[in-house]
């Protein structure tokens, strides 16, 4: 690799990381507790026996009954019903009108086996603040897209770092952390070692994070494209009045008859972000471990309770769904979560050592840095 090539890659590596480092450190720091959000929430909410019973996705009291209870508590109209595959907890989201924004929504949870209210879930507290910071920094869609761009820079920094790893390691065995060297060389060696061992994980979490940042536009594109085509016969009809909603249980039975064996994950009510203006959109998850992350919506006419259409979502939306577990690390139990945490800490250390390398004196002397890389960073190079 020529000096000129190394210089160009150093330039890309330096600026892609410098611009994104502070945001990436924030994402790591907020992401770390979010890995364990299930455990933290379970400990703080302590449902006790309130969740006991068969999975709410498969059986329990009629859905119409549960939804009516939620509407009595929250007023307005139902917007979403969420099922659990593990316990009897079922959630119902309500809002003043079918197209209510998220800020006007209220979320109630019940035990579907007994009908007992388990309480209103308020979007507040430390975990909620961390999640908002991590997702959009309280800035909504612009914040999400901005963090998506930071993700792109992160991936660019990883790839340029990988390119620079080659000339640097030409004369050093894998894993070298030169013990007698200066602090600066130690930072450099650590940066390279931790950077290269976290490479695969960091690329996957970075790329899936970018995909997640575009979740809202992707969902909107699906609703305005694929979904609109599925229900094209309804075009031009006035939105359905909630007073005329048919039985949800009947709708569910119709959808289940069309594709037996699938388990429902949630229902989007007419007029919301996840349905048309006239349909219950019942989202089923697949019955294998992989397809359980991919949703298939059944669109049931919310006035007549008859099935209009059922189709798997487009490839981009499926990629979005598969990218969620791969970003959150919540699909393989406790041990996988601990690995996620360790990888996050290692990534933070790569970011910090990278900053240290930039902050040292004469860091702007690009020729010296090229020498350092070309020579395999001579063991006794001064700081």
């Amino acid at each position, binding site marked *: 690799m020529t000096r000129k090539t190394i210089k160009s890659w150093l330039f890309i590596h330096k600026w892609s990381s410098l611009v994104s480092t502070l945001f990436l450190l924030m994402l790591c720091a907020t992401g770390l507790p979010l890995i364990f959000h299930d455990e933290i929430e379970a400990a703080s909410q302590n449902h006790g026996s309130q969740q006991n019973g068969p999975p709410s996705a498969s059986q329990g009291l009629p859905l119409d009954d549960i939804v009516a209870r939620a509407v009595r508590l929250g007023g307005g109209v139902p917007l979403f019903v969420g099922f659990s595959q593990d316990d009897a907890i079922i959630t119902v989201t309500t809002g003043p009108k079918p197209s209510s924004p998220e800020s006007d929504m209220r979320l109630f949870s019940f035990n579907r086996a007994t009908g007992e209210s388990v309480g209103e879930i308020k979007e507040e507290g430390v975990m909620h603040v961390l999640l908002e910071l991590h997702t959009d920094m309280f800035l909504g869609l612009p914040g999400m897209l901005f963090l998506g761009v930071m993700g792109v820079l992160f991936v660019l920094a990883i790839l340029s770092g990988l390119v620079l*790893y*080659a000339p640097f*390691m*030409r*004369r*050093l*065995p*894998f*894993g*070298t*952390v*030169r*013990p*007698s*060297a*200066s*602090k600066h060389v*130690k930072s450099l*060696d650590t940066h390279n*070692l*931790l950077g*290269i*061992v*976290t*490479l*695969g*994980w960091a690329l*996957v979490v970075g790329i899936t994070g970018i995909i997640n940042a575009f979740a809202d536009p992707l969902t909107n594109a699906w609703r305005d494209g694929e979904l609109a085509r599925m229900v094209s016969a309804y075009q031009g009809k006035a939105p359905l009045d909630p007073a005329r909603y048919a039985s949800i249980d009947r709708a569910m039975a119709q959808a289940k008859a069309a594709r037996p064996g699938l388990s429902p994950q949630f229902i989007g009510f007419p007029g919301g972000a996840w349905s048309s203006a006239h349909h219950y959109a019942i989202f089923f998850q697949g019955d294998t*471990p*992989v397809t359980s*992350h991919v949703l298939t919506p059944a669109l049931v006419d919310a006035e007549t309770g008859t099935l209009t259409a059922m189709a798997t979502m487009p490839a981009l939306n499926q990629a979005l769904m*598969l990218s969620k*577990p*791969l970003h959150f690390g919540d*699909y*393989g*139990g406790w*041990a*996988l979560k601990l*690995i996620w945490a*360790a*990888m996050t800490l*290692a990534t933070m250390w790569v970011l910090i050592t990278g900053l240290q390398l930039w902050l040292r004196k004469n860091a702007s002397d690009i020729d010296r840095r090229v020498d350092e890389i070309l020579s*395999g960073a*001579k*063991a*006794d190079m001064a700081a």
Partner: protein
Amino acid sequence: MSSSTRIARQSLAQVFWVPALLMGSSLGGLVLGLTGDGWHDHAAVILLALPLALSTHHWRRSASTPRNDDKKDRS
């Protein structure tokens, strides 16, 4: 040990075979965990733990060798 850390110039394949192995191990683990529960999850954890274990090993090796100017123990 510092002078003995340097070795003869390696080919790209020599530089990258361990990183490639670790990357394959990580990606394999990530995907394997998605495809099932039980042994899939255990294998995923082992494959993903491999890069972490290897870096810890190299860290410990360097920490156990005497240093001249760094008194802080960061291992």
